[in-house]
């Protein structure tokens, strides 16, 4: 990618619609949804919507949020947006305890397992790290400085993940690459030791997740990609253990026929303490469930859980670590031709039994709106409205689709443009 192209992309915001995001507190104390610049939290314990407090110099996000994530210990929530701000919220006070300025727009965030480091990736492929030591409520206005941790050379990083034991940080990019780096004792000095590269995807990598159980506490990495596959990796060696052609499988398994063509994997969510993986696929109304057999190191498609009645194509998935629930959201910022610019729809699948390796997903039920924890109040908060009109909904599904493509597929020059660029280059002019 050309500098000028990236920089042009920085200003060209109207074409870049942002898909809605969801993240669930590890103990299911709360659930967060981001739509456009709006960050919405519902307190599941208290059964009410949360009002965030942000008295930093640049309060709240001013542009589309691109990543949200709870810390593994549940004490923090981090949000990052196209306004180049990374905001760290306390889940106790729901105050913004730090607002970090990034140099470029941010594409992914991760929080170390001890909750002491927030890492974020920018659009130039650099991963930054912020130390949170001595950060408490009294220091709310402190602008922490981020230090560069590692970089993928000029490739957009699409996902960042810590390994379950905290030893590695894994970063995935648009150039089909997954890099596994030792997370050092002093991260502010940079992470220089690369453990492995997981290479095998033939399109951009869109999402990463770890699957880990009591028996396999080191975990295995799973990744989703624009090549319509989900792959299973051993991160120590970088070896590809198995590939599941979810694009083809979703077409076969789904009774009412999927969308033709585009089977980009848009999100992955591993069901904690089990071997199930929920996969969101572009164009698929519902989710696909995969089962990871850890002993034989294989990935198998179990079934497609279809969502009937509405065009629900999830843009983001989430679950808490002791949860039986899979949370799904669909939505998009800046719906053209609509007054409501921050539409989202939340759905929940129930019945993931903890520690049941034989669970084949047959007991799963899609909760009705009145069965949701917090029911109407939750929907009012997270969706912005209890009911979502179907026509707006269809438009959102379409917008989400283009958003995913625009976000991740490389800008291709048209043939004429390429020829024109070539002609302008001196090395093409063969001197006689």
């Amino acid at each position, binding site marked *: 990618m050309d500098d000028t192209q990236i920089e042009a992309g920085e200003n060209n915001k109207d074409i870049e619609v942002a898909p809605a995001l969801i993240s669930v507190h590890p103990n299911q104390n709360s659930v967060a949804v981001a739509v456009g610049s709006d960050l919405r939290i519902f307190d599941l314990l208290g059964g009410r919507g949360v009002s965030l407090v942000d008295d930093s110099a640049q309060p709240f996000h001013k542009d589309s949020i691109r990543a949200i994530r709870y810390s593994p210990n549940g004490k923090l929530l981090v949000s990052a947006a196209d306004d180049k701000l990374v905001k760290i919220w306390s889940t106790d006070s729901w105050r913004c305890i730090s607002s970090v300025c990034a140099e470029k727009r941010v594409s992914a965030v991760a929080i170390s397992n001890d909750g002491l480091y927030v890492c974020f990736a920018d659009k130039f492929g650099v991963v930054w790290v912020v130390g949170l030591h001595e950060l408490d409520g009294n220091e709310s206005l402190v602008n922490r400085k981020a230090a560069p941790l590692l970089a993928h050379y000029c490739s957009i990083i699409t996902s960042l993940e810590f390994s379950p034991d905290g030893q590695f940080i894994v970063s995935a990019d648009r150039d089909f690459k997954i890099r596994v780096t030792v997370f050092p004792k002093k991260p502010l000095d940079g992470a220089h030791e690369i453990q492995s590269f997981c290479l095998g995807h033939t399109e951009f990598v869109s999402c990463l997740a770890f699957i880990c159980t009591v028996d396999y506490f080191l975990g295995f990495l799973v990744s989703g990609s624009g090549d319509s596959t989900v792959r299973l990796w051993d991160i120590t060696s970088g070896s590809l253990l198995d590939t599941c052609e979810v694009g083809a499988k979703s077409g076969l398994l789904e009774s009412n026929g999927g969308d033709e063509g585009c089977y980009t994997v848009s999100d992955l969510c591993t069901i904690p303490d089990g071997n199930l993986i929920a996969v969101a696929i572009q164009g698929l109304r519902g989710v696909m469930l995969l089962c990871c057999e850890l002993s034989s190191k294989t990935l198998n498609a179990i079934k497609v859980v279809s969502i009937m009645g509405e065009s629900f194509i999830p843009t983001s998935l989430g679950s808490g670590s002791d949860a039986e629930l899979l949370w799904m959201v669909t939505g998009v910022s800046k719906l053209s031709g609509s007054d409501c610019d921050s539409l989202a729809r939340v759905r929940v699948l129930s019945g993931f039994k903890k520690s049941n390796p034989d669970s084949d997903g047959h007991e799963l039920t899609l909760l009705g709106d009145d069965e949701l924890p917090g029911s109407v109040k939750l929907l009012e908060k997270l969706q912005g409205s209890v009911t979502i009109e179907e026509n707006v909904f269809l438009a959102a599904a379409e917008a989400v689709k283009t958003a995913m493509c625009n976000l991740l597929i490389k800008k291709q020059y048209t043939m004429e443009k390429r020829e024109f660029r070539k002609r302008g280059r001196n*090395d093409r002019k*063969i001197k006689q």
Partner: protein
Amino acid sequence: MLENESNPTISKSTGLPRKRFYRARAHSNPLSDSHFPVPISPGHVDYSFHYPQLVSSDQADSNKKIEFADVGCGFGGLLISLSTLFPETLMIGMELRDKVTEYVKERISALRATNPGQYQNISVVRTNSMKYIPNYFGKGQLSKMFFLFPDPHFKEKNHRRRVISPHLLDEYAYVLEIGGIIYTITDVEELGEWMKACLASHPMFEALTEEELGADPVIKLLSTATEEGQKVARNGGQTFQAVYRRIAPSQ
């Protein structure tokens, strides 16, 4: 090389490709996405294509691996010198400019044709080394990496285009075996300082001692073997080299 008889880009007297037909612009932008094939992983690099006499195609999983990489190899002078100095070692040049890569390909095949049995261990790929090094080499695969007279990219804002940078050194450390050596040389003092500073502050590299430098037969090639080195020497220019060894990071 009968078929080249009428080809004006091949010199009739030497049978080697004429450089002037492969003249290229001086600097290219490593950030722009070009359209050339990239192997999915090091296991997908086609060795029998690059080294047909040494690796046969049915020997796909032969354990012979590329050990030297000349990054930004330009017209390939270093590879040609190294080829006879280390006849058992597989080496590859990586070059971004397509015309220059074509020139090196022609040059190697001409050398192979005129010197039967020789120059079988060198080859070249057109690629952006700053992006695709991990697609070509696995962990600890290389024993030597060369960065001879790289483009200087003077402007501060373009420093991230430099082939030696703190982040890229992480990748070079990954593909180099412990004890492997990274050779850099330039005629631009500022760039020389920069490369040395990047290497010196990296926890996985240490400088070779004067003694070790003296004992290494490759050192004298740095300033003499490549086209750029010869140009600098002709003009009586000064050169600045930094040669470092890959070490294990201290825990």
